[in-house]
């Protein structure tokens, strides 16, 4: 088990493809995407109930054990959140190597 950072980003679903590209560019070793979430934040309630998905969120989870890459991911996520809203949390975790 290797120490790593667990980065979690909640963002509008429409932005997901862009964020995925940004993550790859930043060198993320991978990510998991849960593509339907609703929620509430500074910009009010997002019910996730419209057929067009305009009020639907999604959640990225990224495990990363290189500090430098974590920095780059954070730097890529920050302006995206400023522009489109959303939340990013970082947690210490252990990564099971198999």
């Amino acid at each position: 088990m290797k120490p790593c950072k667990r980065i979690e980003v909640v963002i509008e679903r429409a932005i997901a493809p862009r964020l995925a590209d940004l993550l790859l560019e930043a060198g993320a070793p991978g990510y998991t995407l849960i593509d339907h979430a609703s929620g509430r934040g500074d910009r009010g309630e997002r019910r996730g109930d419209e057929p067009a998905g305009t009020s639907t969120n999604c959640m990225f989870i990224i495990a990363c054990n290189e500090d430098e890459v974590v920095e780059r991911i954070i730097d890529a996520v920050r302006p995206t959140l400023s522009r489109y809203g959303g939340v990013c949390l970082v947690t210490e975790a252990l990564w099971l190597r198999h």
Partner: protein
Amino acid sequence: MDSLFFANLTSPPLLFFALGLLAALVRSDLEIPEQVAKLLSLYLLFAIGFKGGVALSSSLGGWSTFTSLGAAVLLASLIPLGVFFALRARLGAADAAAMAATYGSVSAVTFVTATSFLDAGEVSWSGYMVAAMALMESPAIIVGLLLYRIYSNNGAGAVPFEAKGMLRESFLNGSVFLILGSLAIGYATGSRGMAQLEPLVVDLFIGILCLFLLDMGIVAMRRMRDLSRGGGQTLALAFLGLLLPLLHGAMGMALAWMLGLGEGDALLLVVLAASASYIAVPAALRLALPEANPSYYLGTSLAITFPFNLIVGIPLYHAAVRWLIA
């Protein structure tokens, strides 16, 4: 207003829309899951596009087709200009541009409800009006984004101009793409294709429209609740949401009169002008214009203009069209 007004009020699609409004009003837990709503909406775009294409294939080519399509694109480009300059001072460039794009574009479901209103009253309409609708989806997005780029105060540097992204969001938007694609396929396969797809795209149409409007009623009422918690600005937005369709409807009416369109086509042009997008445009704007507040453009369009057009607008515009033509 004649008996069609009351016929509309008691048509199944409208009653199911009202049932949805009621469900959310009394906070029933009735709910259409998101993917089901998506399926219903994909179906409607697929069916209306295909039917329009088939109709087009048997009636294309006249001057009237050409002028109608031109008028449609003209409307969809002019309306956003008016909306933007009227609202810029109060809402700022971003929100004004978003409102411009939203009200310049169209609501496919409002259009579809108007066609079923005409069918119920046995008023004929032309297949190329579906093409007109498809053509009206995108221009307003482009006009709105260009206006924002020109008039936003941050200077050109601050607002990244993603022309490629802009075109993608406008023309490759899922709903626009599906309608245009189905239209083309309907056109290419004509009555031979229709013979194969009729049970799905014609026979089931009104029933599925009922289910979709049930869902949209629920969603619209939730947005009304959210808006009504919004405080002072709400009343102004609600007022806008009622005023703009009437104004744009009148513009559509004038154009229809100048072109000498028949009763059915005239009503559809008016409805297209009066309606505002709450599917394609908001999806595009979230990507291309995140600076704008969705509760303004999406809230007004979905919670005010859409129900207004469905319940009051369509029969009202119809009465006006009849009065003008007779």
